[in-house]
């Protein structure tokens, strides 16, 4: 398959060579992996970093006064530095390791929600949230008397800013928690504007950056965010490690989420005192190997550069929208002006699962279903969609394979 993209600075073939799995075949066909928004594939540097750590330099962190533990702690903590640099956090201690984005959101809902917010206050989310940015707030609502409000999404798939503002006007909102990029619609939300609006009405703002940070440079200071969450495995890193960034003064005010080892300063039968931020939020032996892998992933992304990544993916997305829209019976869900490399669609007379099964037979991996965003599916009047999503290794030619196969899928179900 030849890549026809007109890039001089971005060598997709070279990038693809970094990902061992891309040479696999599926059902006798070359793998066409269009499911990176669910989880991205891993470059060799990430795999090697994790294997090397286990083979040459591994012990528990923050404990042993021995050489191996100190080296491992250095490696673990250097990922914190890399992440702080990646999102321009002013203070490395503001980076808290979690299990994933869901873990980060639950940490905020539990610790900030119950520990700092008062019953009667409200949280505002939007119609285009992933379940991980819905359910923790429902649990907070039910446990702590917090009101949950939902800002609308326009028919084009953009955040309705007037709806958001209407929810803020009584000034009882403690937190606005909104995705930075929809995992279904591909929409980027105007994060800086959202933060400005939230702050105007005295609310803090959290962004779910699980998708956004993969495709575009994130600067938490420029956004004026208060909380920012993302996960490692979508960012070409391993599973089992995610990130919560929050302003230090917020982390200082928040009580711990999980209690246990590594998060304490001292423990007696009467009381325990907490370790400093961020360790206060990192109870138990952390995902050491995974953090080392994530550090390598961050280095990998930076070595390509967000400008090149964004340009590549914008080209792919434009190509995908053009090819898919040209197929009779295909309906693309979400037409936001500012969007990233995720395209959801339905096909007349064929259910998304059937579409995905037929595509799978061609070696094409897409996601089908509600994408952990059932309320959004209802908002657009669909049960489920198929979704193609792109990464640094995606070829224009793979989108052509998808489009050509979809034409045949349509004929199959005609």
């Amino acid at each position, binding site marked *: 398959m030849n890549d026809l993209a007109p890039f001089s600075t971005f060598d997709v073939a070279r990038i693809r060579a970094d990902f061992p799995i891309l040479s696999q075949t599926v059902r006798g066909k070359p793998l066409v992996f269009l499911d990176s928004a669910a989880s991205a594939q891993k470059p060799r540097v990430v795999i090697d970093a994790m294997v090397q750590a286990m083979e040459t330099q591994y012990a528990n962190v923050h404990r042993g006064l021995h050489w191996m533990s100190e080296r491992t702690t250095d490696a673990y903590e250097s990922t914190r530095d890399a992440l702080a640099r990646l999102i321009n956090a002013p203070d490395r201690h503001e980076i808290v390791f979690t299990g994933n984005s869901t873990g980060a959101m639950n940490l905020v809902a539990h610790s900030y929600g119950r520990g700092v917010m008062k019953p009667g206050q409200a949280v505002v989310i939007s119609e285009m949230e992933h379940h991980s940015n819905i359910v923790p707030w429902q649990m907070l609502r039910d446990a702590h008397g917090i009101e949950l409000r939902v800002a609308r999404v326009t028919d084009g798939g953009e955040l309705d800013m007037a709806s958001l503002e209407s929810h803020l006007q009584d000034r009882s909102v403690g937190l606005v928690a909104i995705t930075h990029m929809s995992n279904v619609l591909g929409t980027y939300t105007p994060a800086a504007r959202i933060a400005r609006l939230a702050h105007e009405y005295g609310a803090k703002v959290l962004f779910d950056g699980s998708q956004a940070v993969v495709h575009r440079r994130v600067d938490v200071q420029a956004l004026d965010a208060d909380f920012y969450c993302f996960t490692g495995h979508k960012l070409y890193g391993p599973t089992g490690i995610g990130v919560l960034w929050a302003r230090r003064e917020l982390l200082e005010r928040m009580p711990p989420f999980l209690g246990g080892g590594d998060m304490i300063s001292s423990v007696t039968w009467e009381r325990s005192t907490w370790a400093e931020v961020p360790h206060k939020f990192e109870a138990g032996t952390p995902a050491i190997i995974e953090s080392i892998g994530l550090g390598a992933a961050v280095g990998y992304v930076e070595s390509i550069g967000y400008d090149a990544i964004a340009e590549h993916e914008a080209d792919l997305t434009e190509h995908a929208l053009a090819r898919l829209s040209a197929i009779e019976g295909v309906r693309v869900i979400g037409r936001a002006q500012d969007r990233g490399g995720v395209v959801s669609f339905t096909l007349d007379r064929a259910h998304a699962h059937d579409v995905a099964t037929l595509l799978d037979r061609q070696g094409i991996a897409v996601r089908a*279903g509600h994408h952990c965003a059932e309320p959004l599916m209802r908002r657009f009047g669909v049960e489920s969609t198929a979704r193609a999503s792109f990464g640094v290794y995606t070829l224009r030619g793979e989108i052509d394979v998808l489009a050509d196969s979809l034409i045949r899928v349509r004929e199959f179900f005609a």
Partner: protein
Amino acid sequence: MSDAATFDDLRDLYQEVILDHGRRPRHGKRLVQFDAHAKGDNPMCGDRVEVFIRREGDRLAETGFEARGCAISIASADLMAETVAGKPADAVRALFTRFREMARTGKCPDCDSDEAMQRLQPFAGVSEYPSRVKCATLPWHALIAALDGEGQASSE
């Protein structure tokens, strides 16, 4: 490779009878009069079915359903409704056990001798697609729940 040949190997899963019943279900409606009904949900994919039954004595006189889901789940619900018509409840339960076994393993030892199983044989192909087995069995779970007087099928 011709277009038609592209998906030929999927004809084991999407046999013509499945495509036909998936597209034009004959029993895909709520019964005007029914004695019991039950829902089945597949939270993994969002498929949902509600089965309505009308009894005459111990026999299932009529079965209808409302469903949203893929071709396989709709066709399975429809062929199920067709196949169980007039059968005693015990026979329906026994049929489900055999149907589930066939969907899981692809094996159907009595498909040659048993008329009901013969009709359901097109679903043997789902055994090759583990994530799709539940598409075929979900309506049956709802039917059994309705027979048992439960409103909701328990998940497998």
